[in-house]
């Protein structure tokens, strides 16, 4: 019996001990250092290491402002934040992406940073990037609700041997392929079991909407304060061209159609197709996984009437309820300065918004296509859907199924246009009442 009692006491003690280090709403007395929680969503090995190293560096240099690194995950961060904002326990510094900021800003959960941004940080990041984090804060005034620091552009990852064998002009950052050249090259590379290109279209919306800007396609128009969907000739252009590669030219691998972005990579290494249009970050997986002897190059995205592409940004924001917003801003300014952004961009294989970082030798080296990737940053403009209230629902309920059906050749482009507009406007209307 004694043993049982002792075990019970030990168990309770273990539970109590294991609960240490907790307790929300920590405040510091005047003599104690200010404590800041930093929720980071970095997940790649190099990126996590860079984040931890920068936090450590900051904590060493700033004994009065101590930052706690908290690692979250992209898949659940918004569920987590909704609860934490509502419960008043959100972290001080929050890593997220710009589409998620609009809703939180409107609800008053994020701090407007307009007056807090140091000039050096503000001037180092181009206005196009600041536009991705400028939203209506719910009171009819535009505010800056985050500091944009990493962006993604679309490039084409190519099998070097197949590219050279096709004897087509190799595009450069200054002279990218036009869509016509891209289609012709894909056609030329299609031989026997090998296709020219692969379009993984499991999630087709963001990719096609961002590329549609090549021809000025925006998919949304705002008049008299009301946003509606539009699918005119500009919007149809990229959709039609991808569809043509699949069913007219037959230069696109049909096996990749239902796949997610990274899924076609094994077939790519096997030489089943030559070109893979993808976000710049996918280079990391190619560099890590490609079998010995497989040579690959990064090509710039194709050009329509322009080379413009839609972009969203990864951001750092400050919670409205943070007790130490000034200290949090100081930390963000350090964390996102030029050299540090270069480290973060390299870790995540994305593009830095900082112009100083973009000039870093690591960002312009030919190795792993960094030169082409970094050069594509100049083509990035705010993604047209970024500020559309109700976009997420339009995307999941209307655009995703419609585009999937179109790329599976089940409906015509006219039906696509009709459904995107009619069903889409019904969705948007509910958000604008």
């Amino acid at each position, binding site marked *: 019996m004694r043993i049982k009692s002792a075990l019970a006491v030990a168990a309770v003690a273990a539970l109590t001990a294991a609960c240490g*280090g907790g307790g*929300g709403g920590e405040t510091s007395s005047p003599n104690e250092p200010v404590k800041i929680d930093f929720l980071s969503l970095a997940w790649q090995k190099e990126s996590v290491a860079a984040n931890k190293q920068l936090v450590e560096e900051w904590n060493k240099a700033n004994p009065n402002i101590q930052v706690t690194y*908290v690692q979250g995950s992209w898949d659940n961060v918004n569920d987590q934040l909704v609860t934490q904002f509502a419960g008043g*326990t959100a972290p001080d510094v929050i890593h997220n992406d710009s589409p998620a900021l609009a809703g939180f800003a409107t609800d008053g959960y994020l701090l407007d940073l307009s007056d807090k941004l140091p000039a050096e940080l503000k001037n180092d990041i181009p206005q196009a990037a600041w536009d991705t984090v400028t939203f209506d804060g719910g009171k009819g005034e535009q505010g800056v609700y985050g500091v944009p620091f990493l962006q993604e552009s679309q490039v084409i990852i190519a099998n070097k041997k197949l590219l050279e064998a096709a004897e087509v002009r190799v595009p450069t950052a200054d002279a990218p392929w036009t869509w016509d050249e891209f289609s012709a090259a894909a056609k030329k590379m299609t031989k026997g079991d090998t296709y020219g290109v692969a379009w993984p279209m499991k999630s087709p919306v963001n990719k096609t909407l961002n590329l549609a800007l090549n021809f000025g396609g925006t998919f949304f128009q705002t008049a008299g304060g009301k946003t509606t969907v539009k699918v005119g000739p500009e919007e149809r252009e990229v959709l039609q061209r991808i569809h043509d590669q699949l069913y007219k030219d037959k230069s696109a691998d049909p096996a990749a159609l239902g796949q997610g972005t990274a899924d076609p990579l094994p077939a790519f290494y096997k030489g089943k197709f030559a070109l893979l249009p993808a976000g710049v970050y996918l280079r990391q997986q190619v560099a890590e*996984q*490609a079998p010995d002897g497989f040579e690959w190059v990064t090509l710039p995205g194709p050009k329509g009437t322009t080379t413009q592409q839609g972009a969203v940004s990864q951001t750092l924001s400050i919670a409205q309820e943070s007790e130490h917003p000034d200290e949090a801003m100081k930390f963000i300014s350090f964390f996102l300065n030029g050299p540090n952004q270069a480290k973060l961009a390299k870790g995540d294989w994305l593009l830095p918004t900082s112009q100083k970082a973009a000039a870093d030798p690591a960002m312009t080296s030919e190795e792993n296509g960094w030169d082409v990737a970094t050069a594509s940053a100049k083509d990035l403009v705010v993604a047209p859907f970024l500020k559309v209230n109700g976009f997420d629902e339009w995307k999941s309920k209307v655009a995703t199924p419609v585009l999937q059906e179109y790329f599976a050749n089940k409906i015509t482009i006219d039906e696509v246009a009709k459904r995107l507009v009619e069903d889409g406007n019904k969705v948007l209307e509910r958000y604008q009442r």
Partner: protein
Amino acid sequence: MRRLPQYAALVAYIVFLAFPLLWLLSTALKTPQEMALTEPTWIPREPTLANFTDAFGEQDLVGAALRSLIVALFSSVITVLISLPASYAMARYRSLLNRVALGWVLVSQVFPFILIIIPLFMILREMDLVNTLPGLVAVHVTFTLPFALWMLQGYVRAVPPELEEAAAVDGASRLRSIVSVVAPLLAPGVVATLLFAFISSWNEFMFALVILQNPDVMTLPLTLVRFTGPEGVARLGPLAAASLMATIPSLIFFAIIQRRLKSGLMAGAVKG
């Protein structure tokens, strides 16, 4: 010889059950290049422990597993301690209150968890239980309890009342007959409930995500998710290595406790 098809079916079923675990092991030992082959291999060509060193080097998996174990053990034991007497009362006493209670237990299962997560969070915050393991234990117990009650109630109903009556005839008090007659017969039910509560708590993610924010108190599911990126992209190697380690404690727990999962304890207990 006649049993051959039965054994074949059994082997096929075991392979089917073991497949995910074996695939996890195979993936955990592969290099990134081998994971990207179009023809997947079962046995890694160049087995590597790099995924394990990465997973354990980057994350505090041992600490997280320990915290998960503490939460799961406390949650499952408390759940059984509460649901055992409650289920006895529900099965044996038939009153209006009892029926209402049973109905309420069922209704509570209908609510999607996500609807109540914010109010729950507020309550825990008022009680200073956010960021603490007892807070998480309280939530896990609350959410496992209704199903545990239903489970155990079924086991209690299966114990013939005649056995208690026989004990009463022999002079046993109600408490004595519960402790000495009913409880031992409920052992398989208690074990099943314990397992259910343990595994529910061990795997639980959403409440832990919301309640635990301090890196020092995070449980295993929260740590595993750190190997995944946006839109389902994941670092498969370290994730497989970490997930493999995460399955071991529940396997051990199951191996220890499954011997008690016997049936037929009451065979022939009552005549006719």
